[in-house]
Structures are given as C-alpha cells and as structure tokens.
C-alpha cells in the first residue's frame, strides 16, 4: 500500500516533504504562542483548500459556497456538545453525515437539472446564504446571538472534548492536513481521480468513453463536503463561538478558496503553498502597518487585494507550478 503510494514520486520531492513534515512537527517546540496559532491558521486553510480542491481542482466543479459545509459541520458538533455534552469525536459523525447529505442534495439538484458553470457556482452561494439567514433564526443554536462553547482554562489539554491550548489544535490540524494530503495523493492515482480529471478537461469526451458524469461529480461533491465539515468541527472548538453571520458568510467561502487558487488549482501542494503565502502575507502586512503606525481599517485589505490581483494576472496557474519547476520537481504533484 505505502509502496504503491510512493511509486513514481520524485526522490527530491519526497525528501522535501519529509523535511517539511519534520519541521512542522518540531516547530511548536521553539515557536511563540503567536506563531503556533499562525501555524494553526495556515494548516487550517491548507486543509479546507485541499478539500475544496477535490471539487474544483480535480472534478472541475466551481463551488463558491463552501462556508456552508464549514458552518454546518461546526454547528452540528458544537450544538451536540453544548446541549448533550457529546464529545466532538462522536459529534463529528453527525457533522460529516449532515454535510455529506447537504452536498449530495446540492449536487443531485444541480447535476440532475444540468446546472453548470457560473450557474452552479451561484447555486452554491445561494444555498450558503440560505443557511446563513436560516441559522440566524434557528433558536436551538441561539440564532443570530451566537452559539458559545463553555471555555475551560488551558491548564491541561483534554483531547477527548477538544478543550485545550492552541498547541494541541496545531497538532490536530497538522494531522488533518497531512491526512488530506495523503488522501488526495491517493485519489489522484486512483480510478476515480483519473475519471475526475477526464471530466474536468472535457465532460463530453469523458461521457463518450463511458464515464458516468453524474456519479463521479456526486462523489467529488460529497467527499469535499464531508472533508470540509471536519474543518468546521475544529473551527468551532478552537474559537468557541459561532455566529451565522460570520461562519456562513460568502467572504468565508472566498477566503477558503483563495489558497488553492493562488497556490495552484488541481495540484497537491498548491493549497498548502497558497495558505502559507496568503496567511503569511496578511499577517506580515498587519505587522508592517502596525510598525509604521498606520492603523486605519481597510489598508491591509487593499494591499491584500492588490497582491491578489498581481498573482492572478501574472501567475495564472498559481504559484506552485512554476515553483515546482524551479525546485526541479517536474511532476504536477
């Protein structure tokens, strides 16, 4: 199994990956609390970016409403914990089920009725917005006044109830990001992965060769939704508060897809590189402006927008493909 996964991966790439993983593992030992939470954020965006990439990068379905799955996953696990004291490790099954179901429903409606392209993207936004306003009026999860998780002190880490320090969440997120990476790597080499890319490149040609478009698109949506829901669970227990206005907002959906697009759509390393660049850029800009004494809301986002514009204009395939060539890793992964 492992031998098959490693087959054909360039040695150099493997060495770099191992070095990266080793660095990420020891990183919290010598980093400040601030850097660890930053690391958590990067890994979080790398993970959701990877999940989104399955749908867009692999199967070619543009979703602009992934905040729906983050939000549903977060709310399901958090509500079970708040109301019944259920551990998130049990609650996450509810999250996965709910999001897989939501993904399946949206996918079924869209693919059955032939909603594609821009229309599909806007349908996904519509469902997320629908959920946002619906949860604003959903009393069981406290509606627009927000759902709060009881915050314990960080004296000791309680992994079972996910109560603990940013360090614990960092390692949890690292495990998830690494797992998603390996899963996506395996998927790309499986039959499903080849079908997805065939559908992405040319749905007509894929169908002519006997690929069941509906089935494989559905698999991509459901898998992507289920993976995204886990990020929602971690989000809920890390931040301890949930507001429909924030978690389901379109800007959240856009935020989570920036990473893979900047990093390189359809590549394995792209979401990680994108998350690192964007989070680093945002934080770096914040620090820089703070040091310069410019403390006006909006300045940071304007710079952010300009950087984004430049990347989109001059690196249409994202940062990773040219970077991979520069590093001597010719393969797309």
């Amino acid at each position, binding site marked *: 199994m492992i031998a098959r996964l490693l087959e054909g991966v360039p040695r150099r790439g493997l060495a770099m990956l191992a070095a990266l993983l080793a660095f990420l593992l020891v990183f919290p030992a010598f980093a400040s609390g601030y850097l660890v939470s930053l690391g958590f954020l990067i890994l979080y965006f790398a993970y959701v970016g990877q999940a989104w990439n399955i749908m867009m990068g692999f199967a070619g379905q543009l979703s602009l409403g992934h905040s729906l799955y983050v939000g549903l996953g977060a709310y399901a696990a958090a509500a079970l914990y708040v109301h019944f004291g259920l551990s998130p490790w049990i609650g996450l099954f509810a999250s996965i089920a709910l999001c897989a179901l939501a993904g399946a429903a949206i996918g079924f409606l869209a693919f059955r009725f032939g909603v594609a392209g821009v*229309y599909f993207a806007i*349908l996904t936004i*519509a469902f997320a917005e629908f959920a946002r306003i619906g949860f604003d*009026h959903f009393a069981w999860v406290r509606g627009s006044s927000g759902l709060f998780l009881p915050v314990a002190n960080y004296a000791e880490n309680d992994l079972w109830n996910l109560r603990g320090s940013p360090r614990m969440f960092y390692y949890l997120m690292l495990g998830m990001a690494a797992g998603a990476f390996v899963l996506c790597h395996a998927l790309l080499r499986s039959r499903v992965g080849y079908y997805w890319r065939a559908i992405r490149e040319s749905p007509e040609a894929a169908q002519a060769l006997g690929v069941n478009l509906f089935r494989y698109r559905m698999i991509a949506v459901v898998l992507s939704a289920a993976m995204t829901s886990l990020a929602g669970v971690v989000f809920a227990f890390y931040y301890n508060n949930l507001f429909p206005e924030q978690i389901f907002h379109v800007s959240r959906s*856009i935020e989570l897809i920036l990473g893979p697009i900047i990093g390189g759509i359809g590549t394995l390393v792209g979401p990680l590189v994108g998350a690192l660049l964007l989070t680093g850029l945002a934080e770096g800009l914040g620090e820089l402006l703070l040091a310069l004494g410019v403390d006006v*809301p909006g300045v940071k986002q304007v710079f952010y927008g300009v950087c984004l*514009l430049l990347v989109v*204009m001059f690196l249409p395939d994202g940062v990773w493909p040219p970077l991979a060539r520069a590093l001597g890793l010719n393969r797309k992964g």
Partner: protein
Amino acid sequence: MPAEIYLNVAASGLLTGLVYGLMALGLSVIFGVVRVVNFAHGEMMTVAMYLTLVLFGALQLDPLVLLVPIAAVLFVFGYLLQRALINPFINRPEHSQFMLLVAVALILVNLQLLVFGPDAKGIRTPYSFDSFQLGPLVVDASKVYAAGAALVVAAALFAFFRYTLIGKAIRACADNYEGARVVGLDVKRLYALTFGLGAACVGAAGAMLMAVIDVTPAIGPAYTLLAFVIVITGGLGSMPGALLGGLLIGVTEALGGVLFTPSAKSMFAFGLLVLVLLFRPQGILGRKTA
C-alpha cells in the same frame, strides 16, 4: 386594513425593484456581451453611491440630476477596467476571471472603508419625507422619482442597443464573436464600451438608490449577490429579464419582510433563485443557449 398594508408594501417593493432592475441590467448586459460575470458589481454601485454623497454635499444638487455625471464617471471607470484588466482574461477559465474581479471588489470595498469609514451615511433631499397618495396607496416620493428615472435610463439603453450602429455592433459581438471579428469590428473596444455601459447603469442606479437608502461599504457585496439573484431569476443576458427579475425580487423581499421578519427577507429572494435555477436554469426570460 391589512390588505391595504400588503398593497402598499407591494407597491413600494415594485418601485425599489425597478431600481434593482436597472442595477442588474448592468450586470446582465456585461455578461450577455463580454461573457464575464462582474463579481464587483455591488461594489461599483457603492462607488456611485459615495460619489452621490460627496457631490450632493458639495453642490446640493438633486441625485436625479447627479446621476448623469455619475453614470458618466462610472462609464469611464468601467471602460478602463475592461481595457486594462479584464481584456487579457477574456479567454481564461471562469475561476480565473472570478478571482480577478474578487480582487477588484476587495480593493474597492476597502478603499471605501478607508475613505468614508464603516458608518452608514445618507442624504436628505427636500422631498425625502414627501409621499404621493393614490386612492388607498401611499408611496414615497423618492421611490417614485427613482423608479421613474430607472425606467428612463433603461429605455435609453434599450433604444441604444436597438437603433444605434454601435449598439447593433455590440449585439453582433454578443451573438457571434468570430463573425464580428470577420466583418472587421473592433471587438476589444466594443467589449470595453459594453463594460462601460454596464457600469453606467449601475452608477445611475446607485445615484438613485442614495435618495432611498443609506450607504456603508458593507452593502457592496450584498448588492453583488442581489444583482446575481435578479439576473439569474430573470435570465442572465436578457435585458427585459433583468428588469422583470428586479421587480419580482423587489416585491418578494418587501412582502417577505412584512409576512415574516424583515431580517429573513433575503431568504425569500434566495429561495426564489434556487427554484428558478432548478426548474428554469436559463431564467424566466432567458434563452436556452444562454
């Protein structure tokens, strides 16, 4: 008595809907010709709203007068945006165009935040508190004027596309890109003109809306979404569809607001969108191939 309330609310929704329709018309024209979805549409409208705010403060001119220079400014803005940024993206994949316009939207929203701050700002015209009475109907004067102006601008746009040579040339580009190039049309310039016209529509709509609602930078993204909902309901690329969609959404939101809670009103708009996408994806007046 309750029936009259509903009637009044529906009439008010209808009037606001016309202004929405003009805003969405801009989006629809741009998509119909350039085939680019303008994800910065609502942000462009708030630019127009802030321009109205500043010019009104400086000149004390009526927003209905200001809408002419503001539409002109937005036209230039749209023209340059298309020429400088969007033209190189015409043949790039959708997600790439999407990212470009998201970046533009991000810059616009935050520049507004930087200059004007996050607080809501409004203007008060001499007729802000006037209303017309028509039998049992009582409607705000501002809304009536805004809706009237929206109809005039929309009619001018229809006439432009129908009767002028440039309008016909633009329609030719929309119908057949290759064909338009073969007969020697300067497609890039026509695309930029179209984007400018779409921006002018949203600029005019913004100037009029300023007489009706307050502006904050945050409403930009909300109006982008609203414009999508409207054009898809009416039919993306169909001009009458955009106006019809605007009316429908205006009334749906207004009635949803009184029948349930006002904060849930856009849920009805999105519900309508989902239904339309599923059962008539090309929109109510859209063509099958759109």
